[in-house]
């Protein structure tokens, strides 16, 4: 799922994924993202940081506090190279970070890797 207020970003990412035979849900803000999670979405979430009304960090806080985190991996998308330090408190829930404009190949690799991780099941005899 991509969460971004910019329509072209959403659409281009969607085209990218479809061209690779994947599928992508889109949400134009934190509110829509939460609605889809409530509706049962599980997967990799590409979260834009700078969004009107509810920014990426607030959306993550809301996801965690509503217990919707499990089974998802969150990758932040941002134009800034460095995040605000005050967001450290939820850094554990931000698995990765991509700086715009990202390399599509990199995005695809990341998405497929994290997507594959999500398919893993708990196993305690790995050692």
């Amino acid at each position, binding site marked *: 799922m991509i969460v971004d207020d*910019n329509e*072209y*970003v959403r*659409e*281009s*990412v969607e*085209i*990218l994924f479809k*061209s690779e035979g994947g599928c992508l849900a889109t949400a134009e803000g934190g509110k829509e993202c939460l609605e889809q999670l409530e509706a049962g979405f599980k997967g990799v979430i590409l979260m834009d940081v700078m969004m009107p009304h509810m920014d990426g960090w607030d959306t993550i806080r809301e996801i965690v506090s509503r217990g919707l985190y499990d089974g998802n991996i969150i990758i932040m998308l941002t*134009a*800034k*190279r460095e995040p605000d330090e005050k967001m450290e408190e939820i850094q554990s829930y931000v698995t990765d970070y991509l*700086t*715009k*404009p*990202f*390399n*599509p*190949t990199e*995005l695809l690799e990341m998405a497929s890797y994290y997507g594959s991780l999500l398919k893993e099941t708990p196993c305690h005899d790995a050692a």
Partner: protein
Amino acid sequence: MNYRQAHTLTTVTNKVQYMKTTTKYILASSIVAIMIVAMFGGYFLSQYQDYEVREEQEKLENCIRTFWELLNHKGTDFRVVNGQLLAGAYAVNGNFELPDKVQDIFGGVATVFMGDERVSTNVLNAEGKRALGTRLVGPAYEAIFKQGRTYRGVVNILDVPYLTAYDPIKNRQGEVIGALFVGIKESEFLERMHDLKVHLMMTLAGMATFFISLMVVLGRALHQVEAANDSQIRFQQTLLNTIPNPVFYKDTDCRYLGCNKAFEFYAGISQDELVGKTPHDLWPEELAECYLQHDLVLLEKPGFQGYEATVRYADGSLRDVIFNKATFNGSDGSVAGLVGVILDITERKAAEEATKNAYQQLWEIVEFLPDATFVVDKEKRVIAWNRAIEKMTGLKKEDVIGKGDYVYSIPFYGERRPILIDLIDENMDLIRDKYAFITIEGRTLFAEAIIPNFRGGADCCLWGTATPLFDSQGNQVGGIQSIRDITGYKQAEGERLLLKSQVDQNRLMETIMVRLGHDLKTPLTPLFILLPLIRKQLAQPDLIKKFDICIKSAISIKNLADKAAVLAKLSFRIQPFDAEDLCLAAVVDDSVLTCEDMLGLKQIVCQNCVDPAVIVHGMPGQLRELFVNLISNAVHFSNDRSVITISAEQHGNALWISVRDEGVGIAADHLEHVFDELFKADESRHDLETSGLGLSICKRIVLNHHGRIWAESPGIGQGTIMRFTLPRKAV
């Protein structure tokens, strides 16, 4: 006794005599007054008494006449028959009708005598009964019975004084056979007279007391005046002695009559010794003659005289003095002598000298003031024109000093006109327009004026201050003006403002760059995603070629945005100088490692020649960025298989670090500009792989380390050396 005392005494004696005379006059006139009052009083009293007596006598005559009328009415034939007095047939004896009637009408008493015996009366005896049978005695008896005539007079009747009238009663034969009597008690009349006399006496006594008192008072006053005279003489001498200036007086022969203590000190002799001496007896010949001449001139032309002289005091000190002399007149009005006062003006002269010296020093200070300065007097004539203003205007002192009529404005304005110093006490509006700026603080004016073609040269900006000068009494005695050429300062100020605006502009630019850096990235995202997707679908080679240009452009936009953001961050944010001591060689190693891929691509070798012992003070992150940028830059402009050398050497207190390449080099006229934002060495070509910001970032980092960075190049194609300095120890 000296003259002054004598003179004083004469005056006083005259006064006393005058007073005595006055007292005598008063005394005499008082006595006369008393006498006159007494005489008039007596006269008035006697007149009054006469009048009163006449009144009483008239009343008495009326009274006795009425008695006669009444008696004659009874009968006119008086005779004594059988021891009874008869009037006609009317028996008088024991009959009180007539006397009582008289008493009713007139008051008083009335009696009828038969012979000398009272036979009808209302005179009462001591027991209060009618005094019948008593007899007439005294002068009345004598007159009636011996001389046969009437009697008038004061008679004591039964010890009471009466004003009386006695008439004889005669028979037909003319023989006195009895008498008629009326009397008015004299007491009332006398009491009135007595009262008057008492009043008169009291008035006289009062007057006498007044005059006597007056004389006593005058006498005492006279005594006091005599006493006062004594103290006045003492007072005057004390007064003289109290005067700190020597005072003396001489007679018309120029002989000293007396002096005060100060004079005694001055002359070194006592007053007693002085009296009677002439100047020649006391002073050196020359001085004495001088005094004498002055004295004589004064005596010839009485009045006042003053002259200066230098005298030697008895204590040996030489003093500048002023002699003030004046004649005085005797009691007859003719010139009696002269008085002199000596004023010691040594201190005053010294003070004048000191003031003169102070002024001299002041002039010297003004003369050497670094600012062009001139001073004018009250009439606006130039009284000081210092070196600085000579230099500024080219006008020499001798051409200006003592001149007025706005001579000082000529070098500035080429005409005679009021300037700043004239505004001190004149209407500011007159020439306000001629100043770029003018203000007043207290009494001091400040102004800035632009003088076009000053002394035939360039326009000049002058800063002037003018202030009035006052003497110690607060009177305005002139003014002082200073002029400074602030043209250079103004230019510097202009440059400073320009610089400031540039800094502001840079700030604005940085802000825009930060915004641009961030905001470009979002719209670039779809490009980055979609362009490669589209390219995959392209088949025509020329289309692919065109499309690649688009992709490269997008990449270059991204690079630009990235670097702009970095540069803006480095320069715009207030960077805490979070420095620490670092091993420079290790930092270079890190940076070279980072650039390994880039170097490998062109097979360029990067040599780290930095001594591992070199420790620098800096921010590791920024220094790494600095080296990476410099290496990237060097790689970019180097040929394949060339060498990049990084080295450090000590230069004084600073460390010079250089990154040397064997690349294309930089044209001399570009050396200064390579660190400018967005400067690219090859301006004609759109270099898509460099942002043009790399070296700007380097410059910013070096500046953040309080160092400087510059480029050196022997010329095009001969390689480049980028040098910068770093502090060695903590700053």
